[in-house]
Every structure is written in structure tokens, then in C-alpha cells.
């Protein structure tokens, strides 16, 4: 009962039979649809406990919680998009570069002047459009050009960041439109707008993946593209759309970064692709495609950002953080493999 019934747990689709021995039911608890997320909840809870013990009130405060969520929001939006691409059997290494290019393009003097004369929404739509076009190029080359996703997006990683440097002339472009920063970087009912955007994207992503034709077909394309094709699904178009989707997510992330840092630069989103892929994979999405979980991805993102926060509060340097991240990724994937083997899905 792994696979696709996974997210249906909440609707009572999968009732775990309770006639097993206590030990087995404990493992069943972890291996079941809800269980995979339970493991993530426990990991996050452990991190929080460590944070509380080592940093005390500085960690528990509302402000610190919002700091964590604000940090999580940008990478979170990208990771939700990445979940779709990976579930559909692809990979996108260019997300960080697309974020940089979108942020730079949306904050050029030309765009900002236009935005000043009209509305700051121009900046937002520029970023989204740049992201979508980059994703479209990726998708077309992969689906219709029959190139490996790894190579195409690697080329985009180099190309988009290079183009961002050219446009920005390697300078930081300050966002001068205060209205934009006030709105996107502001708060609604005490909650940062960035966090709200992340929440909306996560919920929309969950619905899209689990409750719509698009999501169902994404699973099919990632699981068995040949079967999907024979069932009459336009696999190439669908694959292209997945890359456009992650491109738009990158554009949105660029908007959020512009508001958070009040500047656009070609160094935005450095190594973001690795953070996003790591969050998606420790969340339980299968790197080979065919299984994906938005809830897991959100937890993956929260685990990494909480880790960063706890380390920062304890004045530990980023190198130690990197080592800890590496260890977490390996442990998470090892655990997942164990769980998958115990679930024993026959070939």
C-alpha cells in the first residue's frame, strides 16, 4: 500500500489492518502511507528539541519560528516545483540559475522604471515569465529534442546564470520600488507574506498532485512512460509542462527573494538545486519517478531550514552545517530503502 495510495491516507483510503504483532505494527506504522511522514515529523521534532535545549527561548520565540519559515519559504516553493519534475521521472539542475536570472531580469532599471510608471505587478510577471520561458526551453529540449534531463538542465544552469551576470553586469540591482517590498516582504495578521505564499503553493501543489488529472498523469509518466503513451497521454507535452511548472515556481521564488533581500543579483539561488533535490528526496519522493509527496517535501524543507537555524543560533559555522546535511541525506535515504524493502513490493 505504498505508492499512490500514499497521500490518500487522510481520506480513509488505506486502513491498516491491526492484527499484526506489536513489533510488526510499529514497523507498519512507519512504512505505511502516514508512516513515512511520521518519520519526518519525528526528525523535525528531534531537531526542535535540540534547538530548545541548546538555544532555549531564542529558538522557541515566535519571531524565530517566523525566521525559520521565511527562510524555508523560498526554497520551499522551488522544492514543490521540483517534486513534480522528479515525480514525472525528470530532474532539474537549473532551478538556482533560473531564480538568479528571474531576479535579475525583474529588477533591471528598465523593468523597475516600467513598474514605477505602472504597477509593481510588472516585476512579478517579468520574473514569472522569465522562469516559465526557461522551463519551456528545458522541457522542449528534453521532451522533443530527446536529450537527457540531466544534460539539458546542466546547460541551463550554466547558461541562465551566465545570462544573469551579463544582464546585471555582475552588480547588485537594488529594488527601489518600496511598495513591492512593503507588500511581498510585509506581514498579514503577523505572518510574513512570504510564508503565506509558501503555504498557498504547498496546498495548491498537493491538490494538483493528488487530486487532479494532471497529477495522476504525472505519476503515470514517471512510473511507466510507455504505458502512459499507450493510454493516450501526450507524454512529451506533459513532460514539457512539468518543466514549465518548475520554471514558474523558480520565477515566484525569485520574486520572494527580491522582496526578502530587496535586491536582484546573479548570485541568488546558488546551489539551490541541490537543496531542493535533497529536500524532495528526504521527503520520500522517488528519485527515479513514479512516486511523489508534497507533504514530505515540505517536511524536508523544514528539516533543513530548522537545522540551519539551530546551528546558527549556536554559532556553529556553515561547514559543520554542510557535514550535518550530508549525513542527514544519507541516513534518510538509507531508512527509506529499508522501509521500501520491508514493504516488499514484488517486482
Amino acid at each position: 500500500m505504498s505508492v499512490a495510495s500514499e497521500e490518500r491516507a487522510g481520506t480513509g483510503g488505506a486502513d491498516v489492518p491491526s492484527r499484526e504483532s506489536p513489533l510488526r505494527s510499529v514497523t507498519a506504522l512507519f512504512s505505511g502511507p502516514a508512516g513515512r511522514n511520521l518519520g519526518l515529523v519525528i526528525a523535525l521534532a528531534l531537531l526542535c528539541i535540540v534547538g530548545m535545549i541548546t538555544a532555549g527561548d531564542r529558538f522557541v520565540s515566535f519571531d524565530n519560528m517566523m525566521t525559520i519559515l521565511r527562510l524555508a519559504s523560498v526554497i520551499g516553493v522551488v522544492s514543490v516545483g521540483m517534486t513534480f519534475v522528479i515525480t514525472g521521472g525528470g530532474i532539474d539542475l537549473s532551478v538556482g540559475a533560473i531564480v538568479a536570472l528571474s531576479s535579475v531580469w525583474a529588477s533591471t532599471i528598465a523593468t523597475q522604471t516600467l513598474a514605477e510608471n505602472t504597477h509593481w505587478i510588472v516585476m512579478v510577471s517579468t520574473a514569472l515569465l522569465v522562469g516559465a520561458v526557461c522551463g519551456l526551453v528545458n522541457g522542449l529540449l528534453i521532451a522533443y529534442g530527446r536529450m537527457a534531463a540531466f544534460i539539458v538542465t546542466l546547460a541551463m544552469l550554466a547558461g541562465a546564470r551566465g545570462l544573469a551576470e551579463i544582464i546585471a553586469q555582475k552588480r547588485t540591482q537594488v529594488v527601489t520600488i518600496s511598495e513591492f517590498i512593503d507588500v511581498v516582504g510585509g506581514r498579514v495578521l503577523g505572518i510574513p507574506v512570504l510564508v503565506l505564499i509558501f503555504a498557498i503553493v504547498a496546498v495548491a501543489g498537493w491538490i494538483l498532485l493528488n487530486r487532479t488529472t494532471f497529477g495522476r498523469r504525472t505519476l503515470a509518466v514517471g512510473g511507466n512512460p510507455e504505458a502512459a503513451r499507450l493510454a493516450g497521454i501526450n507524454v512529451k507535452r506533459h513532460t514539457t509542462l512539468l518543466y514549465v511548472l518548475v520554471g514558474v515556481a523558480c520565477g515566484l521564488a525569485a520574486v520572494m527573494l527580491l522582496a526578502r533581500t530587496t535586491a536582484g543579483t546573479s548570485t541568488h539561488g546558488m546551489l539551490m538545486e541541490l537543496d531542493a533535490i535533497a529536500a524532495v528526496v528526504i521527503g520520500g519522493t522517488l528519485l527515479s519517478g513514479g512516486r511523489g509527496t508534497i507533504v514530505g517535501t515540505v517536511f524536508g524543507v523544514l528539516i533543513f531550514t530548522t537545522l540551519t537555524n539551530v546551528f546558527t543560533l549556536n554559532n556553529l559555522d556553515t561547514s559543520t552545517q554542510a557535514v550535518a546535511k550530508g549525513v542527514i541525506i544519507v541516513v534518510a535515504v538509507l531508512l527509506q530503502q529499508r522501509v521500501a524493502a520491508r514493504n516488499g513490493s514484488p517486482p
Partner: protein
Amino acid sequence: MSEPILELHGLNKSFGPVHVLHDVDLKVRAGEVTALVGDNGAGKSTLVKCIAGIHASDSGEVRFQGEPVHIRGPKDAAELGIEVVYQDLALADNLDIVQNMFLGRERGSGWLLDEASMEQAARQTLASLSVRTVKSVRTPVSSLSGGQRQTVAIAKSVLWDSKVVLLDEPTAALGVAQTRQVLDLVRRLAEQGLGVVLISHNMADVFEVSDRVAVLYLGRLAAEVNTKEVTHGQVVELITAGRSGDLGLARPDTATV
């Protein structure tokens, strides 16, 4: 004898220099099982894929219910009511039975899926085919046995109010009991009034369930006969030599089709 529901006239198909199908004529009648037999490479699977719209035929006419039709893709075939159960099953392992049966034609309002309605329809279809081997329609396909997978693939093909079902070697990888179940299922499809085309290598299966046998020999239709009027030996001869007594192709040197 009823009018054929699906008729092929002079179908040709080449892959580059290889001429795989030569002027193939074939008639499929509703309520009958037509067995399509032939040696490896005779063109059986290619013929099925041409009918299903996976391959475009080079020339020839396809008539469906008497009307000439052009099938350009799997969607066109599906809209006419032609369904194919492929040799390799074409099921997505990571999806459950309901999800597989509705793949590509999901039910729902707008974008949202209607799981309850799909689940119910899947159950009804399985019940109408007297399938009892599948416990839950929410079982992932990866955990099903070969026979169960075949059953799901066949049930998927009849879910669509389909009129013609093409089965590409449905029993090839199955054990004795499972073959039994699948053959029963094939017979039931015909009894429900569908036109069934069964590709098989197994003569016992062919003689057990089919009403007519069509033999392909090196891309040509060697013979199309009533199953009752021929013997095992004759069919085997048709498969291996293209002719048997009065039946089959004229001698190769005089063959002008």
C-alpha cells in the same frame, strides 16, 4: 453471418526497407473471437499496432462498422471503441487498479478527479466479467500476479463501452490456472457482443476460444477460416509454410497479390 465490425483492406506497412505487412485483409465480427496467428516476425504485433494507431499504415483502408475511418493515434482508436491489451501489459506499476483502468481518461469535474465514481465503475466492470481474483481495486498493480495483471488489463479495455478488443498474447507468461481464467475472460468478452482479436502462439488456446482463425505468413494473410473447419495440423502448416492443401497462399513463385 453478421457484418464485420472492423474490416481491413489491403493494409501495407514498411519500416524503412522492410515490408512488414503486405495487402492484409482482415474482418472482425462482433460476438466472435478471431484468433490471429503466425510465426515470429509474421507481422501480428505490427498489425495490431496499425489498428491501434501506434503505427501509421502506409496504404490500405480501415472500415469500422462499415464506415471508412482514419486512425492516427491511440486516442482515435479509443474514440471508435477499439481497445488494445498489449503483450507487455502497459500498466503503470506504481498506480493502483482503478488508477490504471482510468489512465488517460480520468473521470472528474474539470481538473479534479472523481475517485469514488471511478472506483465504483472499476468494481462494476470487474464484477460484470465475473472477476473474483482481485481483492481490492485499490491494490497497487505492482503487487498483483501475472494473471491478475492480465485481468486488469483486459477489464481496462472493456471499461470504455468498447466494441473491439485486441489482445496481444494475453496468456504468454501465465501458468495453467491463470491461462484458464484469462481464456474464460476472453470468451466472456465475445459473449458480451464485442469483437475480439486474440493473438496467440498457443494452438490449444486458439482452438479452445476462437471462432475464426486468421493466419499471417511473412506479412501476408495466408488464410482466414472457421476454426471448426480446420485441424491443428493445417493451421501449423499455414503458419510455417503459408499454405496447406487448398488453403493458403499460392506458391511463392506465382504469388501475385
